Protein backbone atom coordinates (compact mmCIF):
# COMPACT_ATOMS: atom_id res chain seq x y z
CA UNK A 1 0.00 0.00 0.00
CA UNK A 2 1.22 3.47 -0.86
CA UNK A 3 1.34 5.64 2.22
CA UNK A 4 0.48 9.33 2.07
CA UNK A 5 2.14 11.67 4.52
CA UNK A 6 0.92 15.24 4.91
CA UNK A 7 3.16 18.08 6.06
CA UNK A 8 1.37 21.12 7.48
CA UNK A 9 2.68 23.77 5.08
CA UNK A 10 1.57 27.02 6.66
CA UNK A 11 5.01 28.28 7.57
CA UNK A 12 8.50 27.18 8.67
CA UNK A 13 10.61 24.14 7.81
CA UNK A 14 8.12 22.62 5.37
CA UNK A 15 10.47 21.93 2.45
CA UNK A 16 13.08 20.40 4.77
CA UNK A 17 10.55 17.93 6.25
CA UNK A 18 9.25 17.03 2.79
CA UNK A 19 12.80 16.28 1.60
CA UNK A 20 13.65 14.35 4.78
CA UNK A 21 10.51 12.22 4.46
CA UNK A 22 11.07 11.57 0.75
CA UNK A 23 14.67 10.52 1.44
CA UNK A 24 13.54 8.30 4.30
CA UNK A 25 10.93 6.70 2.02
CA UNK A 26 13.54 6.03 -0.65
CA UNK A 27 16.01 4.81 1.98
CA UNK A 28 13.58 2.24 3.32
CA UNK A 29 12.51 1.19 -0.17
CA UNK A 30 8.90 2.04 0.50
CA UNK A 31 6.32 3.45 -1.80
CA UNK A 32 4.79 6.62 -0.55
CA UNK A 33 4.05 10.22 -1.26
CA UNK A 34 4.46 13.40 0.71
CA UNK A 35 1.92 16.21 0.29
CA UNK A 36 1.81 19.78 1.61
CA UNK A 37 -1.24 20.94 3.54
CA UNK A 38 -2.17 24.63 3.39
CA UNK A 39 -5.95 24.35 3.28
CA UNK A 40 -8.70 22.22 4.76
CA UNK A 41 -9.80 19.03 3.02
CA UNK A 42 -6.44 17.26 2.70
CA UNK A 43 -5.70 15.95 6.20
CA UNK A 44 -8.40 13.26 5.96
CA UNK A 45 -6.73 11.68 2.91
CA UNK A 46 -3.37 11.34 4.69
CA UNK A 47 -2.12 8.33 6.66
CA UNK A 48 0.13 10.44 8.87
CA UNK A 49 0.83 14.10 9.57
CA UNK A 50 3.95 16.16 10.30
CA UNK A 51 3.70 19.56 11.99
CA UNK A 52 7.00 21.33 11.30
CA UNK A 53 8.99 23.92 13.17
CA UNK A 54 8.22 27.59 12.67
CA UNK A 55 6.34 29.95 14.94
CA UNK A 56 3.63 28.14 16.87
CA UNK A 57 1.57 31.34 17.20
CA UNK A 58 1.53 31.78 13.41
CA UNK A 59 0.90 28.12 12.57
CA UNK A 60 -1.73 27.83 15.33
CA UNK A 61 -3.67 30.88 14.19
CA UNK A 62 -3.59 29.86 10.54
CA UNK A 63 -4.62 26.23 11.04
CA UNK A 64 -7.55 27.67 12.98
CA UNK A 65 -8.44 30.31 10.37
CA UNK A 66 -8.02 27.80 7.50
CA UNK A 67 -10.15 25.15 9.24
CA UNK A 68 -7.32 22.59 9.49
CA UNK A 69 -7.35 22.48 13.31
CA UNK A 70 -10.46 20.27 13.75
CA UNK A 71 -9.22 17.98 10.96
CA UNK A 72 -5.99 17.39 12.86
CA UNK A 73 -7.95 16.48 15.98
CA UNK A 74 -9.94 14.05 13.83
CA UNK A 75 -6.74 12.50 12.47
CA UNK A 76 -5.48 11.97 16.01
CA UNK A 77 -8.78 10.39 17.05
CA UNK A 78 -8.45 8.04 14.07
CA UNK A 79 -5.08 6.99 15.59
CA UNK A 80 -3.09 8.40 12.67
CA UNK A 81 0.56 9.02 13.56
CA UNK A 82 1.47 12.66 14.06
CA UNK A 83 4.99 14.06 14.40
CA UNK A 84 5.42 17.58 15.78
CA UNK A 85 8.80 19.29 15.88
CA UNK A 86 9.54 22.52 17.80
CA UNK A 87 6.46 24.67 17.07
CA UNK A 88 4.69 21.36 16.35
CA UNK A 89 5.43 20.23 19.91
CA UNK A 90 3.81 23.40 21.31
CA UNK A 91 0.69 22.82 19.20
CA UNK A 92 0.35 19.16 20.24
CA UNK A 93 0.30 20.01 23.96
CA UNK A 94 -2.88 20.30 26.00
CA UNK A 95 -1.46 22.96 28.29
CA UNK A 96 1.02 25.82 27.99
CA UNK A 97 3.11 27.94 30.34
CA UNK A 98 2.37 31.64 30.92
CA UNK A 99 4.09 32.58 27.61
CA UNK A 100 1.73 30.31 25.69
CA UNK A 101 -1.29 31.55 27.64
CA UNK A 102 -0.28 35.18 27.05
CA UNK A 103 -0.34 34.78 23.26
CA UNK A 104 -3.87 33.23 23.33
CA UNK A 105 -2.65 30.79 20.67
CA UNK A 106 -4.84 27.75 19.98
CA UNK A 107 -3.45 24.35 21.03
CA UNK A 108 -4.49 20.98 19.58
CA UNK A 109 -4.32 19.26 22.96
CA UNK A 110 -3.34 15.89 21.51
CA UNK A 111 -0.75 15.06 24.20
CA UNK A 112 -1.11 15.18 27.98
CA UNK A 113 1.84 17.48 28.46
CA UNK A 114 2.48 21.02 29.63
CA UNK A 115 4.79 22.91 27.32
CA UNK A 116 7.14 25.81 28.02
CA UNK A 117 7.85 28.13 25.08
CA UNK A 118 11.45 29.26 24.54
CA UNK A 119 12.43 26.95 27.40
CA UNK A 120 16.16 27.43 26.88
CA UNK A 121 16.15 31.16 26.08
CA UNK A 122 16.35 33.40 23.06
CA UNK A 123 18.20 32.87 19.75
CA UNK A 124 21.64 33.63 21.27
CA UNK A 125 21.01 30.66 23.62
CA UNK A 126 19.99 28.33 20.77
CA UNK A 127 22.31 25.31 20.65
CA UNK A 128 23.41 22.13 18.95
CA UNK A 129 24.27 19.04 20.96
CA UNK A 130 24.56 15.27 20.81
CA UNK A 131 21.40 13.99 22.44
CA UNK A 132 20.76 10.50 23.78
CA UNK A 133 17.34 9.19 22.80
CA UNK A 134 15.97 5.98 24.34
CA UNK A 135 14.99 4.70 20.88
CA UNK A 136 18.48 4.94 19.31
CA UNK A 137 21.78 3.29 20.22
CA UNK A 138 24.00 6.26 19.40
CA UNK A 139 23.41 9.98 20.17
CA UNK A 140 21.44 12.17 17.78
CA UNK A 141 22.78 15.49 16.49
CA UNK A 142 20.00 17.70 17.81
CA UNK A 143 19.49 21.34 16.81
CA UNK A 144 17.53 23.43 19.32
CA UNK A 145 16.38 26.83 18.00
CA UNK A 146 14.45 28.96 20.51
CA UNK A 147 13.16 25.54 21.45
CA UNK A 148 10.17 24.69 23.61
CA UNK A 149 10.25 21.81 26.13
CA UNK A 150 7.82 19.65 28.06
CA UNK A 151 7.77 20.59 31.75
CA UNK A 152 5.05 18.19 32.89
CA UNK A 153 3.75 14.95 31.42
CA UNK A 154 1.09 12.44 32.44
CA UNK A 155 1.95 8.78 33.07
CA UNK A 156 0.64 7.88 29.60
CA UNK A 157 3.50 9.80 28.00
CA UNK A 158 6.73 7.95 27.19
CA UNK A 159 9.80 10.12 27.61
CA UNK A 160 12.28 9.59 24.74
CA UNK A 161 14.89 12.17 25.78
CA UNK A 162 15.57 14.81 28.40
CA UNK A 163 17.94 17.75 28.41
CA UNK A 164 18.77 20.19 31.19
CA UNK A 165 15.93 18.84 33.34
CA UNK A 166 13.27 19.15 30.63
CA UNK A 167 11.65 16.54 28.39
CA UNK A 168 12.73 17.25 24.81
CA UNK A 169 11.33 14.17 23.04
CA UNK A 170 8.20 12.24 23.96
CA UNK A 171 5.59 9.85 22.60
CA UNK A 172 1.98 9.27 23.54
CA UNK A 173 -0.08 6.73 21.60
CA UNK A 174 0.79 7.54 17.96
CA UNK A 175 1.90 11.09 18.55
CA UNK A 176 5.57 12.07 18.76
CA UNK A 177 6.79 15.48 19.90
CA UNK A 178 10.34 16.83 19.63
CA UNK A 179 11.87 20.11 20.86
CA UNK A 180 14.57 19.99 18.21
CA UNK A 181 14.78 19.92 14.40
CA UNK A 182 15.59 16.53 12.81
CA UNK A 183 14.81 18.08 9.39
CA UNK A 184 17.85 20.40 9.61
CA UNK A 185 20.48 17.64 9.79
CA UNK A 186 21.27 14.66 7.58
CA UNK A 187 20.51 11.99 10.20
CA UNK A 188 17.24 10.43 9.04
CA UNK A 189 16.66 8.09 12.01
CA UNK A 190 13.74 10.12 13.41
CA UNK A 191 11.94 10.17 10.06
CA UNK A 192 12.59 6.43 9.64
CA UNK A 193 11.25 5.79 13.13
CA UNK A 194 8.12 7.77 12.22
CA UNK A 195 7.67 5.88 8.92
CA UNK A 196 8.00 2.56 10.78
CA UNK A 197 5.19 3.66 13.07
CA UNK A 198 3.07 4.61 10.05
CA UNK A 199 3.71 1.26 8.37
CA UNK A 200 2.86 -0.76 11.47
CA UNK A 201 -0.50 0.98 11.70
CA UNK A 202 -1.30 0.92 8.00
CA UNK A 203 -0.84 -2.81 7.77
Amino acid sequence: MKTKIGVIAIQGDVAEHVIALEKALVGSGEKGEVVKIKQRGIVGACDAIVIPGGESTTIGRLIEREGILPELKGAANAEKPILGTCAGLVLLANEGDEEVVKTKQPLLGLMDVKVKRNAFGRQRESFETLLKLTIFETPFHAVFIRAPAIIQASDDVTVLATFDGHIVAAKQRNTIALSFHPELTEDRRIHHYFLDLVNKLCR
Partner: protein
Amino acid sequence: MVIEIEDLRHGTELLKNGFASLQKGGVIMDVTNADQAKIAEEAGAIAVMALHAVPADIRKAGGVARMADPVVISEIVDTVTIPVMAKCRIGHFVEAEILEALGVDMIDESEVLTPVDTHHVDKRRFTVPFVCGARSLGEALRRIEEGAAMVRTKGEAGTGDVKEAVRHMKLIMGEIRSLKGKDDEELKDVAKELQVSIETVQETAKLQRLPVVNFAAGGVATPADAALMMQLGADGVFVGSGIFKSSVPEKMASAVVDAVNSYDDPKRLAAISKGLGSPMKGIEVSTLAEEEMLQVRGW
Protein backbone atom coordinates in the same frame (compact mmCIF):
# COMPACT_ATOMS: atom_id res chain seq x y z
CA MET B 1 22.47 10.34 30.28
CA VAL B 2 25.68 12.38 30.30
CA ILE B 3 26.07 15.42 28.10
CA GLU B 4 29.55 16.90 28.11
CA ILE B 5 29.44 20.67 28.20
CA GLU B 6 31.91 20.92 25.29
CA ASP B 7 29.30 19.18 23.16
CA LEU B 8 27.10 22.26 23.44
CA ARG B 9 27.56 24.68 20.58
CA HIS B 10 26.04 28.17 20.23
CA GLY B 11 26.02 30.66 17.35
CA THR B 12 26.97 28.15 14.64
CA GLU B 13 26.13 28.66 10.97
CA LEU B 14 23.58 25.83 11.25
CA LEU B 15 21.81 27.59 14.13
CA LYS B 16 21.84 30.94 12.33
CA ASN B 17 20.66 29.60 8.97
CA GLY B 18 18.24 27.29 10.79
CA PHE B 19 16.65 30.24 12.57
CA ALA B 20 16.25 32.05 9.24
CA SER B 21 14.81 28.90 7.67
CA LEU B 22 12.11 28.73 10.35
CA GLN B 23 10.88 32.18 9.27
CA LYS B 24 9.94 30.91 5.77
CA GLY B 25 6.37 31.55 4.69
CA GLY B 26 5.93 34.21 7.33
CA VAL B 27 5.48 37.94 7.75
CA ILE B 28 7.84 40.12 9.81
CA MET B 29 6.27 43.39 10.92
CA ASP B 30 7.80 46.72 11.97
CA VAL B 31 6.57 47.83 15.41
CA THR B 32 7.46 50.83 17.56
CA ASN B 33 5.94 49.91 20.93
CA ALA B 34 4.58 47.03 23.01
CA ASP B 35 0.96 47.54 21.90
CA GLN B 36 1.87 47.31 18.24
CA ALA B 37 4.03 44.26 18.94
CA LYS B 38 1.03 42.54 20.56
CA ILE B 39 -1.18 43.36 17.57
CA ALA B 40 1.46 41.87 15.24
CA GLU B 41 1.80 38.71 17.34
CA GLU B 42 -1.96 38.20 17.56
CA ALA B 43 -2.31 38.69 13.80
CA GLY B 44 0.14 35.83 13.25
CA ALA B 45 3.41 37.63 12.47
CA ILE B 46 6.39 35.27 12.74
CA ALA B 47 8.59 38.02 14.15
CA VAL B 48 8.61 41.75 14.81
CA MET B 49 11.19 44.40 13.93
CA ALA B 50 11.59 46.74 16.91
CA LEU B 51 12.07 50.38 15.85
CA HIS B 52 11.69 53.83 17.40
CA ALA B 53 9.91 54.99 14.22
CA VAL B 54 8.68 53.18 11.10
CA PRO B 55 10.70 53.84 7.91
CA ALA B 56 8.09 56.29 6.53
CA ASP B 57 8.62 58.47 9.64
CA ILE B 58 12.40 57.97 9.61
CA ARG B 59 12.37 59.21 6.01
CA LYS B 60 10.20 62.21 6.94
CA ALA B 61 12.31 63.13 9.98
CA GLY B 62 15.59 63.24 8.04
CA GLY B 63 18.89 63.72 9.87
CA VAL B 64 21.05 60.83 11.05
CA ALA B 65 19.01 57.65 11.58
CA ARG B 66 20.50 55.39 14.28
CA MET B 67 19.76 52.18 16.18
CA ALA B 68 16.52 52.43 18.20
CA ASP B 69 16.54 53.38 21.88
CA PRO B 70 17.27 50.22 23.93
CA VAL B 71 14.25 51.08 26.12
CA VAL B 72 11.95 50.57 23.11
CA ILE B 73 13.70 47.35 22.10
CA SER B 74 13.66 45.88 25.63
CA GLU B 75 9.99 46.75 26.07
CA ILE B 76 9.15 44.84 22.90
CA VAL B 77 11.47 41.92 23.79
CA ASP B 78 9.64 41.63 27.14
CA THR B 79 6.18 41.82 25.56
CA VAL B 80 6.08 39.19 22.81
CA THR B 81 7.02 35.50 22.67
CA ILE B 82 7.86 35.56 18.93
CA PRO B 83 11.37 36.56 17.77
CA VAL B 84 12.35 40.21 17.95
CA MET B 85 14.63 41.75 15.33
CA ALA B 86 16.20 45.22 15.36
CA LYS B 87 18.22 47.37 12.95
CA CYS B 88 21.80 48.56 13.20
CA ARG B 89 23.53 50.99 10.85
CA ILE B 90 25.54 49.48 7.98
CA GLY B 91 29.07 48.89 9.30
CA HIS B 92 28.21 49.88 12.89
CA PHE B 93 29.38 46.74 14.66
CA VAL B 94 29.03 48.29 18.11
CA GLU B 95 25.31 48.94 17.57
CA ALA B 96 25.13 45.28 16.53
CA GLU B 97 26.93 44.23 19.74
CA ILE B 98 24.47 46.29 21.79
CA LEU B 99 21.50 44.69 20.01
CA GLU B 100 22.92 41.22 20.68
CA ALA B 101 23.40 42.13 24.36
CA LEU B 102 19.75 43.25 24.51
CA GLY B 103 18.65 39.74 23.48
CA VAL B 104 17.56 40.62 19.94
CA ASP B 105 17.08 37.37 17.95
CA MET B 106 18.18 38.66 14.53
CA ILE B 107 19.93 41.89 13.51
CA ASP B 108 18.99 43.77 10.34
CA GLU B 109 22.05 45.65 9.07
CA SER B 110 19.85 48.16 7.30
CA GLU B 111 20.06 50.87 4.68
CA VAL B 112 17.04 52.51 6.36
CA LEU B 113 19.56 53.82 8.92
CA THR B 114 22.51 56.07 8.04
CA PRO B 115 25.58 53.97 7.10
CA VAL B 116 28.84 54.57 9.00
CA ASP B 117 31.29 52.61 6.86
CA THR B 118 31.78 51.26 3.36
CA HIS B 119 32.59 47.92 5.03
CA HIS B 120 29.61 45.96 6.28
CA VAL B 121 29.65 44.32 9.72
CA ASP B 122 31.65 41.07 9.98
CA LYS B 123 28.59 39.02 10.81
CA ARG B 124 30.41 35.72 11.40
CA ARG B 125 31.78 36.81 14.76
CA PHE B 126 28.28 37.29 16.22
CA THR B 127 26.20 34.65 17.99
CA VAL B 128 22.89 35.96 16.61
CA PRO B 129 22.06 35.81 12.89
CA PHE B 130 21.86 38.80 10.54
CA VAL B 131 19.59 39.81 7.68
CA CYS B 132 20.85 42.26 5.04
CA GLY B 133 19.29 44.09 2.12
CA ALA B 134 20.30 43.54 -1.50
CA ARG B 135 19.40 45.02 -4.88
CA SER B 136 21.35 42.59 -7.01
CA LEU B 137 22.90 39.12 -6.89
CA GLY B 138 26.33 40.63 -6.20
CA GLU B 139 25.12 42.49 -3.12
CA ALA B 140 23.23 39.41 -1.91
CA LEU B 141 26.22 37.06 -2.28
CA ARG B 142 28.65 39.56 -0.70
CA ARG B 143 26.37 39.80 2.34
CA ILE B 144 26.10 36.00 2.52
CA GLU B 145 29.90 35.69 2.45
CA GLU B 146 30.08 38.20 5.31
CA GLY B 147 27.83 35.81 7.26
CA ALA B 148 24.25 36.99 6.61
CA ALA B 149 21.77 34.17 7.36
CA MET B 150 18.97 35.88 5.47
CA VAL B 151 18.81 38.27 2.54
CA ARG B 152 15.93 40.62 1.76
CA THR B 153 15.32 42.90 -1.18
CA LYS B 154 16.02 46.53 -0.34
CA GLY B 155 13.08 47.87 -2.31
CA GLU B 156 12.51 51.48 -1.30
CA ALA B 157 11.62 51.50 2.40
CA GLY B 158 9.00 53.82 3.82
CA THR B 159 7.33 54.56 0.49
CA GLY B 160 4.50 52.03 0.35
CA ASP B 161 5.43 51.65 -3.32
CA VAL B 162 6.35 48.03 -4.03
CA LYS B 163 7.87 48.81 -7.44
CA GLU B 164 11.51 48.73 -6.32
CA ALA B 165 11.09 45.50 -4.34
CA VAL B 166 9.65 43.92 -7.50
CA ARG B 167 12.57 45.20 -9.53
CA HIS B 168 15.18 43.93 -7.07
CA MET B 169 13.56 40.50 -6.68
CA LYS B 170 13.24 40.03 -10.47
CA LEU B 171 16.80 41.17 -11.03
CA ILE B 172 18.22 38.75 -8.44
CA MET B 173 16.12 35.84 -9.74
CA GLY B 174 17.12 36.67 -13.34
CA GLU B 175 20.80 36.82 -12.45
CA ILE B 176 20.52 33.42 -10.74
CA ARG B 177 18.81 31.94 -13.83
CA SER B 178 21.57 33.32 -16.03
CA LEU B 179 24.12 31.21 -14.11
CA LYS B 180 22.48 28.04 -15.38
CA GLY B 181 24.54 26.24 -17.97
CA LYS B 182 27.69 28.27 -17.36
CA ASP B 183 30.90 26.25 -17.04
CA ASP B 184 33.39 26.71 -14.19
CA GLU B 185 35.50 29.15 -16.19
CA GLU B 186 32.50 31.37 -16.85
CA LEU B 187 31.35 31.10 -13.23
CA LYS B 188 34.84 32.20 -12.20
CA ASP B 189 34.40 35.36 -14.27
CA VAL B 190 31.05 35.99 -12.57
CA ALA B 191 32.67 35.48 -9.14
CA LYS B 192 35.38 37.99 -10.03
CA GLU B 193 32.83 40.51 -11.25
CA LEU B 194 30.60 40.11 -8.17
CA GLN B 195 33.63 40.10 -5.81
CA VAL B 196 32.72 36.79 -4.20
CA SER B 197 34.27 33.32 -4.13
CA ILE B 198 33.78 30.85 -6.95
CA GLU B 199 32.32 28.37 -4.42
CA THR B 200 29.45 30.73 -3.53
CA VAL B 201 28.66 31.32 -7.21
CA GLN B 202 28.83 27.59 -7.98
CA GLU B 203 26.49 26.81 -5.09
CA THR B 204 24.00 29.46 -6.22
CA ALA B 205 24.16 28.19 -9.81
CA LYS B 206 23.54 24.62 -8.63
CA LEU B 207 20.72 25.45 -6.19
CA GLN B 208 19.16 27.92 -8.64
CA ARG B 209 18.30 30.07 -5.66
CA LEU B 210 20.20 32.06 -3.03
CA PRO B 211 22.05 29.78 -0.59
CA VAL B 212 20.13 31.42 2.31
CA VAL B 213 16.51 32.42 2.92
CA ASN B 214 15.41 35.30 0.68
CA PHE B 215 12.66 37.67 1.87
CA ALA B 216 10.95 40.62 0.20
CA ALA B 217 11.08 44.07 1.80
CA GLY B 218 10.82 47.75 1.00
CA GLY B 219 7.43 49.14 0.03
CA VAL B 220 5.07 46.21 0.71
CA ALA B 221 1.79 47.85 1.79
CA THR B 222 -1.16 45.54 1.01
CA PRO B 223 -2.05 41.82 1.02
CA ALA B 224 -1.82 41.91 -2.78
CA ASP B 225 1.72 43.38 -2.59
CA ALA B 226 2.76 40.61 -0.21
CA ALA B 227 1.25 37.90 -2.45
CA LEU B 228 2.94 39.45 -5.49
CA MET B 229 6.36 39.20 -3.82
CA MET B 230 5.67 35.57 -2.85
CA GLN B 231 4.70 34.76 -6.45
CA LEU B 232 7.97 36.32 -7.59
CA GLY B 233 9.80 33.80 -5.43
CA ALA B 234 10.21 35.42 -2.01
CA ASP B 235 10.45 33.01 0.95
CA GLY B 236 8.54 35.48 3.14
CA VAL B 237 7.79 39.17 3.55
CA PHE B 238 8.81 42.12 5.70
CA VAL B 239 6.11 44.76 6.09
CA GLY B 240 7.45 48.03 7.42
CA SER B 241 5.26 51.10 7.48
CA GLY B 242 2.44 49.27 5.67
CA ILE B 243 0.75 47.91 8.79
CA PHE B 244 0.78 50.76 11.29
CA LYS B 245 0.40 53.53 8.69
CA SER B 246 -2.83 51.93 7.46
CA SER B 247 -6.21 53.01 8.87
CA VAL B 248 -7.01 49.68 10.63
CA PRO B 249 -3.69 48.02 11.54
CA GLU B 250 -5.28 44.93 13.20
CA LYS B 251 -7.15 44.02 10.01
CA MET B 252 -4.24 44.86 7.72
CA ALA B 253 -1.85 42.75 9.81
CA SER B 254 -4.07 39.63 9.72
CA ALA B 255 -4.83 40.12 6.05
CA VAL B 256 -1.14 40.28 5.06
CA VAL B 257 -0.44 37.10 7.06
CA ASP B 258 -3.36 35.32 5.34
CA ALA B 259 -2.27 36.62 1.93
CA VAL B 260 1.24 35.17 2.33
CA ASN B 261 -0.31 31.77 3.11
CA SER B 262 -2.73 31.93 0.15
CA TYR B 263 -0.51 33.89 -2.24
CA ASP B 264 -1.39 31.75 -5.27
CA ASP B 265 -5.15 31.61 -4.70
CA PRO B 266 -6.85 34.72 -6.25
CA LYS B 267 -10.28 33.87 -4.81
CA ARG B 268 -8.93 33.70 -1.29
CA LEU B 269 -6.90 36.86 -1.89
CA ALA B 270 -10.06 38.66 -3.03
CA ALA B 271 -11.81 37.72 0.21
CA ILE B 272 -8.75 38.64 2.28
CA SER B 273 -8.46 42.08 0.62
CA LYS B 274 -12.06 43.12 1.41
CA GLY B 275 -12.86 45.89 3.89
CA LEU B 276 -9.39 46.67 5.16
CA GLY B 277 -9.80 50.47 5.33
CA SER B 278 -7.15 52.63 3.66
CA PRO B 279 -3.63 51.33 3.20
CA MET B 280 -0.74 53.71 3.91
CA LYS B 281 -0.80 56.75 1.61
CA GLY B 282 2.77 56.33 0.44
CA ILE B 283 5.12 58.15 -1.90
CA GLU B 284 5.59 57.17 -5.53
CA VAL B 285 9.25 56.18 -5.88
CA SER B 286 9.66 58.00 -9.23
CA THR B 287 9.01 61.33 -7.45
CA LEU B 288 12.00 60.80 -5.14
CA ALA B 289 15.30 62.50 -5.93
CA GLU B 290 18.40 60.30 -6.16
CA GLU B 291 19.70 61.61 -2.82
CA GLU B 292 16.41 60.67 -1.15
CA MET B 293 16.75 57.00 -2.13
CA LEU B 294 17.66 54.68 0.76
CA GLN B 295 18.44 51.70 -1.49
CA VAL B 296 21.70 53.21 -2.77
CA ARG B 297 23.20 52.89 0.72
CA GLY B 298 25.45 49.85 1.15
CA TRP B 299 27.96 48.20 -1.13
